[in-house]
């Protein structure tokens, strides 16, 4: 579905995407994970054929996005990061008007709009204007709109950013249903749980480059340990324990409020801790998540 080699996007002096390689297969759910400014959205815009690559090779659905832009876009569904629904039209018309952009006949557009509103659970809002809808409803409508041309490939740029937990779970559940139908999904996110829930395979981007690639499980196994022990000490700064705990677990990561101890066997590490006479005020053994991978790979410094 997507093939890229050495893909580059520059904005003047600034290089947003710095030579990435990608392969996305049909039916796959593929994720771009990375902090803000990592180049995820720029990559998505190139895949969506709205931004011209500055260098490298890119093929979408086997076609060249620069030459065959309209033909490729006819088979893509795009759900942008910022909703761009039409505020002058009501919910149902937003879908039918958009369908007309694809040259879908009116009667067919109405049939699909009815079906899609059902799918995203907005049927009773069909004649509501867009503005009074909640963020979650707008996002669901955007997803429905992206599906109106029955696309082969759906691009979702941060599909659940800014939504409350209920709305996120509903969006995830709908996206999962799409995936089950065999639709290829490509999404960007900076939520680890989202990537773990939805993606078969993902890449971690940082500074315009791909820093890791694989299934969520594979990434965790490669870049983190199976378990993580979170330790809190009542008295001193966690960093002062780094030397004292040396040799326990595979890696130590002191945070301002707690110490993360990466270990294949968390309970064994805790026993060792007690044997050496340490008494942390709280101990939590948990499974390693993508978040750990993400923070290991892209660092803890805040990027804006």
């Amino acid at each position: 579905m997507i093939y890229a080699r050495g893909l580059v996007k520059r904005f003047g002096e600034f290089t947003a995407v710095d030579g990435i390689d990608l392969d996305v297969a049909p039916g796959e759910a593929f994720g771009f994970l990375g902090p803000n400014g990592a180049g995820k959205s720029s990559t998505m815009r190139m895949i969506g054929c709205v931004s011209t690559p500055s260098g490298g090779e890119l093929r979408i659905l086997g076609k060249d996005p620069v030459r065959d832009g309209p033909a490729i876009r006819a088979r893509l569904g795009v759900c942008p990061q910022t909703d761009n629904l039409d505020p002058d039209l009501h919910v149902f018309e937003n879908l039918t008007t958009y369908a007309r952009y694809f040259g879908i006949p009116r009667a067919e557009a109405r049939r699909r709009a009815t079906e899609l509103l059902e799918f995203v659970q907005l049927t009773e809002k069909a004649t509501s204007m867009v503005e009074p809808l909640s963020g979650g409803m707008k996002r669901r409508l955007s997803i429905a709109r992206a599906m109106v041309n029955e696309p082969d490939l759906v691009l979702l740029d941060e599909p659940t950013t800014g939504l409350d937990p209920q709305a996120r779970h509903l969006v995830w559940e709908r996206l999962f249903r799409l995936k089950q139908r065999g639709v290829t999904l490509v999404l960007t996110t900076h939520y680890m749980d989202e990537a773990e829930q939805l993606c078969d395979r993902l890449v971690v981007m940082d500074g315009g480059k791909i820093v890791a690639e694989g299934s969520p499980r594979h990434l965790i196994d490669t870049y983190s340990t199976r378990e993580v022990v979170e330790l809190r000490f009542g008295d001193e700064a966690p960093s002062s324990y780094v030397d004292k705990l040396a040799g326990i677990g595979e890696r130590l990561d002191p945070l301002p409020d707690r110490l993360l101890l990466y270990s294949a066997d968390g309970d064994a590490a805790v026993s060792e801790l007690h044997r050496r006479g340490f008494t942390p005020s709280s101990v939590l053994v948990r499974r390693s998540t993508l978040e750990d991978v993400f923070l290991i790979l892209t660092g803890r410094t805040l990027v804006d």
Partner: protein
Amino acid sequence: MVLYRRLWQASVFSSFVLPVLFVVSIGIGVGGYVGEIDGWDYLSYIVPGILASGAFQTALSESTFPVLGAFKWTRSYHAARATPVRIIDMVLGWQLYIQFRVAAASIVFLLVSAVFGAVHSPWVVLTPLICGLLALSTAASVSAFSATIENDSYFSLLFRFVMIPATLFSGVFFPVEQLPAVVRPLAYASPLWHGVELSRSAMLGGATPWPWAVHVGYLILLSALGLWWAWRAYSKRLRD
């Protein structure tokens, strides 16, 4: 390719009520004192001009805030960009919408003027076309301008220093020969003056000041340049 053009329930009403008020107040009120211009009563003289300036103003205002808004606030153009719709379709689609607005307003206005007895030539049937061309020549480049700016405060400058002077000094209310010779070229450059003269000639049956083909040609040239500029500006805005 059959594409849906965005047609909103626009207030066609306001775009001809204002000209009608103008006709009534200035044409009949002021006209009573002014007497005749070029052998015509003042009402008949200004009606073609007001018709053209109505088209000009509709074209201008419909290509300012709605265009900038579709890029910046509602991002409708970005939404359309993700579909097979090409940039030139977006440019032409919006111009087509303005054409509908102007055509509807011109036709209603003509009917009202006929009632006031301001129609004197069968060529009047050409005036909606003239208004359409005038609207395109204005709206294309104003849309292009709107696509290049980030901030709507430019529009108040545009209204103050382009729209109002153009409306006042393009031969709508008095012949441009009354203007001092130094500022006359400004009127000649204004698409509105060409539209006004064509419209006046069509409604009153007289000859245009310059050969009519020059007036029409100038408006076509402006339209073509405007559309090219709009295509460039839309592309630039949507490309990255």
